[in-house]
């Protein structure tokens, strides 16, 4: 089981990094989403794996519980990552619509700005 989770995290990370190294916005967004999955599962797994032991207290008998803390952290991380993805998507979209170009890299012409003397 651990090997499955660990290899899945590794593969998702690798695919995510490969995609964020692409030069267009959409693959980068996909890559970030994949890395988000990988990181969330990673954090979750730091609480160690357990089957049939949700952290919901049982009043009637003594049962084992999984580690609740990483779960709480990951829960908010999932929601925040939606916010982050949405912002990136909007930035990518606005940039594309404004310039009709979805490259993420600035071309050398873009970065030439005349330094103005403000004195």
């Amino acid at each position, binding site marked *: *089981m651990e090997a*499955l*989770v*660990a*290899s*899945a*995290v*590794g*593969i*998702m*990370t*690798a695919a995510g*990094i*490969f995609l*964020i*190294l*692409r*030069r267009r*916005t*959409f*693959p980068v*967004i*996909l890559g970030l*989403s994949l890395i988000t999955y990988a990181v969330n599962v990673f954090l979750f*797994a730091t609480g*160690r*794996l357990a*089957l049939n*032991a*949700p952290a*919901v*207290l*049982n*009043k009637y008998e003594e049962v084992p*519980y*999984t*580690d*609740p803390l990483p779960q*709480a952290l*990951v*829960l*908010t991380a*999932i*929601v*925040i*990552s939606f*916010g982050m*993805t*949405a*912002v990136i*998507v*909007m930035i990518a979209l*606005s940039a594309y*619509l*404004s310039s009709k170009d979805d490259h*993420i*890299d*600035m071309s050398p012409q873009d*970065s030439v700005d005349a330094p103005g003397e403000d*004195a």
Partner: protein
Amino acid sequence: MSLFLIAALPFLGAVFPALLIRAGRNAAASAAALTTFLALMGLLIHIPSIMRGDVVTARFDWIPGLGLNANFMLDGLGFLFALLILGIGLLIILYARFYLSREDPMGQFYTYLLLFQGAMVGIVLSDNILLLIIFWELTSLSSFLLIGYWKHLPEGRQGARMALAVTGGGGLAMIAGMLILGNIVGSYDLSVILQSKELIQASPYYLPALILILLGAFTKSAQFPFHFWLPHAMAAPTPVSAYLHSATMVKAGLFLMARMWPVLAGTDAWFYIVATTGLVTMLLGAVIALFKDDLKALLAFSTVSHLGLITMLLGFGTKFAAVAAVFHIINHATFKAALFMTAGIVDHETGTRDVKRLGGLRHLMPITFTIGTIAALSMAGLPPLNGFLSKEMMLEETVHTTWLNSPYLVPGLALLASLFSAAYSFRFVSHVFLGPQRDDYPAHPHDPPVGLWIAPAFLVVLVILIGLYSAAIVGPLVAVVSSAVIGGEKLPYYSLKLWHGFVPALYMSIVATLGGLFLLSMHKRGEQLWNALPRPEAKVIFEAIINAFTRLSQWVTDELHNGVLSRYAIIFVAFTVGLGYYAYTTGTIGVETRVPLPAQIIPIIGWICLVGATLGIMWFHRNRLLSLVLIGVVGLIVSVAFNYLSAPDLALTQISVEVVTMILLLLSLNFLPTETPWDSSAARRWRDAAISVVAGIGTGALIYAIMLRDFAFPTISDFHLANSYKGGGGTNVVNVILVDFRGFDTFGEIIVLGIAALIIFALTEAVLSTNVRGYLLNRKPHWPQSGDSHPLMMVVATRVMMPIALMVGAYIFFRGHNQPGGGFIAGLVVAIAYLMQYMASGYTWAIERQRFYYHGTIGWGVLIAAATGLGAWFNERPFLTSDFGYINWPPLEEFEWATAMLFDTGVFLAVLGAVMLALDSLSRFAWQPGMAREFPMDINPLRDDPKDEDKEKEQA
């Protein structure tokens, strides 16, 4: 009045002038004056205890872990400076009311002035050197605002930048010095440091600490070779020059040296660094001042010279010199502020500050003439004025000082400086007021209204009174302050009086005065000589250095930040991988303590799906729609895995976030190209793949190693499990952590989420207000559109599901505290229920029926969560402490209530609002004219009969 209040009052009062300026300039000035007056009164009521030699303190542990405590103390030295700051501040506020013209934004001026005043008061009252540093930097910042107050003048902006660069740079050095000092002593509290003289002076770090702290003091007090910023700061309005550059800010460095005098002074290093710097500064400033034609520049260099004088006295390290320094601080503040204000009046009334264009004003401006003359003669050191007294003491002390075995060097140079000092003081009087009356003044000079001259007149009265009755008026103050400077030891013998008999100092004074008159008479010749001499122009050197730094940092920035984001990403990843490799090769790893769980067939199937989908995304990522479908598969497997691995809350959250994320990405793909073209070379792809694979293997191996080992130390999770029900009243530990144990984190997170949604909204607004809007309105879709854009089946199904979905949302919300669920998940579920209506009947239809604004929903969510947290204060508990209990209403079973539930409501609203606002904004891109439909679904038989165009037009 508490010292906290005295230090805080100017900051609090700084708000009012900016607000009250709408009610008129008098209102703004009165508010500033009233604030200062209150603080001054608060200070004055401490007079009895100060005069007894007590130290008033106010202590508050701010960040004890760093040794940073908001401790204030008021002793004689602090009292004197606070008195100067607040007292002269009050006079300056009055003067500035009449000085500034109608076009100047006066509200801003007073706000900056009060900010500065607060920072200065903070410096002199601090009993903690870290706190002192904070206020120190605040004075640099607020003086920057004041010097650059006339934003339209390039000199003002350049002067402000130069002052900030020099004093701010010195401040940085001082931080380092103070930290070293604090480390030597083991405390950052001044009261402790001042008791540790032997410890500090015996430390090997004494010299570096001394040099660094002195760098801070010398830059602030414009000591050679950092004196050049002060004349350039004179581009500020005259009230600022009078306040900052004569009475207060430049004295901050002196204050620091006086404050640290008991522990830092008395060594050879202190004597040779401080006294020599002071001596050189005093002489240099006096010589340059004589040849300046701009009145304010003349005064600026004379200030430099006098600051040098005081620095030199402090540098001597003897008690008598310390008394003389204290006395001269008082005297200099009175006559120099008066002189600056006089210069301001002359400038204001004649239209010029150029000495060469002035002269003969004594009959035109008799009041100004009287004030200016008395103040200038005091600066020259003539009896019976106060400048004479302290200069006598200074000269007296120099006679007893030996510099590198030479008993004549210090007194000789000091005499020369006094001579020049007398000369420029006489020049101020004779070249401005005396001489023949002219007829080419830029304006018609006459005495100003009483508001302008009353402040300097008051100071000049002080100049005379202190001169005549020094022992009675300032004697006790000087005694108290001096004893604070020398660290509470016994005062040396001194007497504040005009006549000391025929002592060397008297002969030196006479020589200086006569020599000054002689120099003045030779001024024309001297000026020719001066102008012929080559001399370095500080501004040019300063700017050359600054420009070199600018070019260097521009080059570094251009090289590092060339705008190629993928290069940043690869550097970041490669560096992280390198760090991981370093940790792997140098760290140790414990033995495996956990037995791996057996892998059953279903997880293996899930793994195959996930890995297949992930590899598929990599392979097919050029086909964007297909990769979206595949990433949906990944998300689905991840949520199922969460559920399988005992995390039902995560599973619920992940799957609902999955839905909204997919909708978002699909919507955005509508506008983006559908294919990703090939634009990196094969080599580059292989390189990227290699880096990714290494990073992936590292991450996977790391988590594998973690999962097979137990925690090395006990975790706080057990605490959460044990106290979830007892302390938080809920059995779902994950939810209790979110809304109770870590409620503050959650509170921050919903704010972040709300901000993200608002950013999206703002971006949409910004983009739609450009020409993009036209493009969007005429855009042709990528794919052929379905004939049924709002199909009957979907509309009916979503309408039926709406109440059910809301019900599910409510159910998930209410059970959240005890069973998997809660505000986050409920918010997402309800958002999906609404989104379904948008999808079924279209944006326009849905938006017309929308009854609440999403901005408001986010806002209410955050406010409710905050109000719940604040509620705890009323029960005298910390922010966000929750409470719970049980209620028994007869027809229902006993049920639980918890304030955490209210907090969760806030979370619910914020999440709902944020998700809806984000998707709503994105949908606005898709809006096109003609999309508005009266009907919720498409029942348009005409569309299926395209040949009958006439009929269709009629219909439209």
